């Protein structure tokens, strides 16, 4: 065909709309990139400054000279203890609460109260959680200053995000699946266990990711409830005190003098790597779950 088709040729209006569409797209892309830039810069600086200090012995050796020298074996171990503890507490509780709120709760004053409480809990500053942890876990429940008390505090702090993420993903499972189940005589719990939960794994993993991020990174809630600046022994049980990476970073970068230049960067780099590694695993899982989803 050599003639120009008049029929499907774009009108001036369409060309204008197209321009707007391209503009909006570029703008949105720019904003998205803008958000990535700080993250990449931080990571870049940490890698450049901190990577030379990394070595196997740095990761496993205990700190020496109050932390100004030696490795970060004990803080790293402590952070893993605290994170695991927080996860073990927050995930089951959070998922259970989310299941109740999404699948069982009717819309009454109790439910509304719980929802308001969750939203407010999410907004409480971490230092307030810390003080609550001191009062509730260290003193009232007599856990003392310990991994247990610190993990409990971290768990309370991360519960709201776990609950909200899980509840959203439960509610994203189409109603039709539930009705299909009920219509064949399944109880609510059978429906949840066989159909709803298997299809909301991605939301639960999102909750887990958010939980890990906060548990690994927070300093305030643990420094009054279980973490200490220095300790010469690895924790033997959950009733021991422990060192932690975040607190160690605070220590080497603000409390000590005569610290080698690269040390804080190396500690921070390890902190980020721990978060990325844990989250990377969860994200990989989540992608597999989402890839399987077909509706």
């Amino acid at each position, binding site marked *: *065909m050599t003639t*120009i*088709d008049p*029929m*499907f*040729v*774009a*009108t*001036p*209006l*369409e060309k*204008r*709309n197209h321009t707007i569409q391209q503009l909006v797209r570029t703008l949105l892309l720019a904003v998205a990139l803008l958000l990535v830039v700080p993250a990449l810069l931080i990571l870049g600086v940490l890698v450049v400054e901190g990577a030379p200090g990394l070595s196997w012995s740095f990761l496993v050796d205990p700190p020496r000279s109050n932390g100004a020298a030696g490795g970060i074996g004990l803080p790293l171990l402590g952070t893993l203890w605290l994170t695991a503890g927080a996860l073990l507490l927050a995930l089951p509780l959070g998922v259970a609460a989310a299941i109740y709120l999404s699948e069982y709760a009717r819309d009454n004053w109790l439910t509304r109260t719980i929802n308001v409480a969750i939203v407010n809990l999410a907004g409480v500053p971490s230092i307030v959680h810390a003080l609550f942890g001191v009062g509730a876990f260290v003193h009232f429940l007599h856990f003392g200053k310990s991994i247990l008390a610190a993990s409990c505090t971290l768990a309370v702090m991360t519960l709201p995000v776990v609950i909200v993420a899980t509840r959203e993903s439960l509610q994203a499972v189409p109603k039709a699946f539930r009705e299909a189940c009920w219509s064949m005589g399944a109880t609510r719990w059978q429906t949840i266990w066989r159909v709803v939960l298997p299809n909301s794994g991605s939301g639960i993993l999102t909750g887990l990711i958010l939980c890990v991020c906060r548990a690994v990174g927070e300093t305030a809630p643990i420094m009054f409830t279980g973490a200490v600046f220095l300790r010469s022994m690895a924790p033997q049980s959950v009733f021991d005190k422990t060192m932690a990476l975040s607190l160690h970073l605070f220590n080497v970068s603000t409390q000590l003098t005569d610290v080698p230049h690269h040390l804080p960067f190396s500690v921070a780099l390890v902190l980020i790597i721990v978060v990325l590694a844990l989250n990377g695993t969860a994200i990989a899982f989540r992608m597999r779950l989402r890839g399987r989803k077909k509706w």
Partner: protein
Amino acid sequence: MAEFTHPRTRIARPANDGPLAIEVQDLNLWYGKFQALFEVDLQIKSGIVTALIGPSGCGKSTLLRSCNRINERLGYVTTTGMIRVLGHDIYAPEASRIQVRRQVGMVFQRPNPLPLPIRDNVLFGYRLHHAGRSSRGEEDALVESALREVLLWDRVKDRLHQKATTLSLEEQQKLCIARLLPTKPTVLLMDEPCSALDPAATAAVEDLIWDLRGNYSILIVTHNMAQARRASDECVFMLMGRVVEHSATEDMFVAPQRRETSDYIEGRFG
């Protein structure tokens, strides 16, 4: 199977009445690596209803969706071959996807009115393609004529500002047809438009489709043999991504040329 309600009169139309509504030449289509359409050649005449039948998964929806380029959004679809609408290549480099979709309207299996007032639903497409604000009177006239054309006006004229999603399914589907009309399309594609409807609603929508015949060229996918038989002029039978038979509806149902066609029509597989 439902009895014939009332056999529609088929007005004999002169052949070669203007250009073909849709002309498909040697169309192959792949979803990723999976080939869904094989060497499809098809000529859909103007102003009549053509039914597209065949077992599930044979590529009816795929063929339909190729005709207004809505498959492209998926991103992993490759197409070779040519589709012309009223003689114009819709995949030509200078052809705009937007204009193609405006000329070739589509009705989906489940009624999908937008969660807007009835009036805004009818005007939605029109406003997309119309620069500046048109006068209220102009819009009113468009809404009325579109809704009259789909036989909905008397039922909804007093509640044009109500959400379209509150209508019954039948009314919703008619509204979905009505909202295509203000942009003056030439071809209407319908993908099992009645399969979410009850028999009475099906008959009503079928009547409507039959009424629109003449003003629009209609290509309709259906699983309902009775519907294909009573409400189409020509029939296309597809199997595994290929067009097996294309003939006048009466011929196909009375004397199918191919063994597969008669097997399918008589319900021996499907």
